[in-house]
């Protein structure tokens, strides 16, 4: 089983039975993570942990669906979050492609990945903020922050306060959490996920070290 087989990725094969069952978990983790972060009054949103680890495990398409669905479900209670569906889709896609390109394998690649992940969120958020919210930039941050918070559009806050570093930290912590979880998933479970194999080698290397 150790031999490296060339893996073909078709979108259809990405959506295995297990992937289908991970999506609801991912969305719920996004919710719970966000809730827990605000309950513990952490200065972060941590509301895309589920999207990121799903993308890492099952690839970009499943990750994107998990991200998009998060906002669809939030939208049932607050339709404004529909406007931000593309942001979470982008997070899932980018995290998935980075994982597939093995961009988390050493520290500098990893750092670059975090910046890319944060940047993609900001880039996708910008036009939405401009189109939907009239491009309020810079001025009156506190009011805008309140508005954005109420909208549940957390990325927007980070974007508006012009604080890219903030997003990078948020994504980094989310990623670390995802990585931590994947690290403790038994390898016989990991093998069943589309991209699970990538993490098995690392885990065994870590143990022997």
């Amino acid at each position, binding site marked *: 089983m150790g031999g490296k087989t060339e893996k073909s990725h078709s979108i259809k094969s990405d*959506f295995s*039975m*297990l992937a*289908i*069952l*991970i*999506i*609801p*978990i991912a*969305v*719920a*983790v996004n*919710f*719970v*993570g966000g*809730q*827990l*972060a605000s*309950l*513990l*009054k*952490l*200065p972060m949103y*941590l509301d895309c*942990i*589920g999207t990121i*680890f799903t993308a890492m495990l099952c690839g970009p398409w499943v990750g994107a*669906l998990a991200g998009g*669905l998060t906002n669809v*479900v939030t*939208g*049932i*209670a*607050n*339709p*404004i979050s*529909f406007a931000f569906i593309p942001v979470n889709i982008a997070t899932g896609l980018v995290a998935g492609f980075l994982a597939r390109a093995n961009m988390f394998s050493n520290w500098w690649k990893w750092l670059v990945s975090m910046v890319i992940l944060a940047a993609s969120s900001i880039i996708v958020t910008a036009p939405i903020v401009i189109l*939907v*919210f*009239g491009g*309020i930039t810079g*001025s*009156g941050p506190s*009011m*805008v922050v*309140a*508005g*954005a918070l*109420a*909208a*549940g559009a957390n990325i927007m806050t980070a974007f508006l306060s012009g604080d890219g570093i903030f997003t990078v930290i948020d994504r980094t912590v989310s990623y670390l*959490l995802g990585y*931590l*979880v994947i690290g*403790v*998933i*038994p390898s016989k*479970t990991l093998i*069943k996920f589309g991209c699970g194999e990538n993490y098995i080698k690392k885990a065994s290397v870590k143990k022997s070290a």
Partner: protein
Amino acid sequence: MWREKLRIRKSNQIQALHPSTKFLIVCLFSACSLILGSIKMNGYALLIIPWFLIVPLLCAASGIFMKFCKAFAKVLLVATMIFLTQSFLVRSDVVAWSGGVLKIYEKGLQTGIFISFTILNIAGIFTWMFQTTRNKEISRALEDSGMHHKAAYVFMSTLQMIQVMGQNSKTIMNAQRARGVETEGGIFVRAKAFFPSLVPLILGSIIGAEERALTLESKGFDVNGKKTHMFELEPSGYEKLAASIAVAATAAVLIGRILVWVL
């Protein structure tokens, strides 16, 4: 009969409309809002203001006014914020109103009205739809309209999973507290509480997913044939009427728009 008990009975005829009819209304209403928003009077999109009145009226007629108010509060807050920031902070040459140090510029007021009321209209009509429709109905309607049963499963399962996991996270959090994990104090103390609360939750769910995958297979989930449903959507009988009204109103708005344009 058990199936009788599963049926969702609604005494209110608007509430009882088929979800697809409601969705048609939502789309047409939003389209009208955008069309009306493009009619500017002195640069102001004034028509979308009275258009918004339809939303609370529709909700009142559907018998969900209080529910609507509660759900809509967040949207209202956002819209107000946008309106205020736009009107007070976007500067232009013409001052529309001034009171002491505060000045409202024309340009800001124009965009403020347009954006905030467009948001109110679209978010409002969506809120109406979601407050009058149960998730179960949405899921059934999606499946009826050709969505794959697996996708419909993901949608419903997500809604349940959020509830279940929310409850579990509370249980775990309390257990952590009882074990002496600090949940208050400095930022690092609180951050340290975050990980042990979340990681077992996620891990447990993922491992459970494996067994659930097999369970679903045992129950024929991956059979690609026609499915039956114990729960069926029942039209209220007023679907055609409601759709006709919505289409007629949209046509009127569209004609009005063209007239304004031509004249």
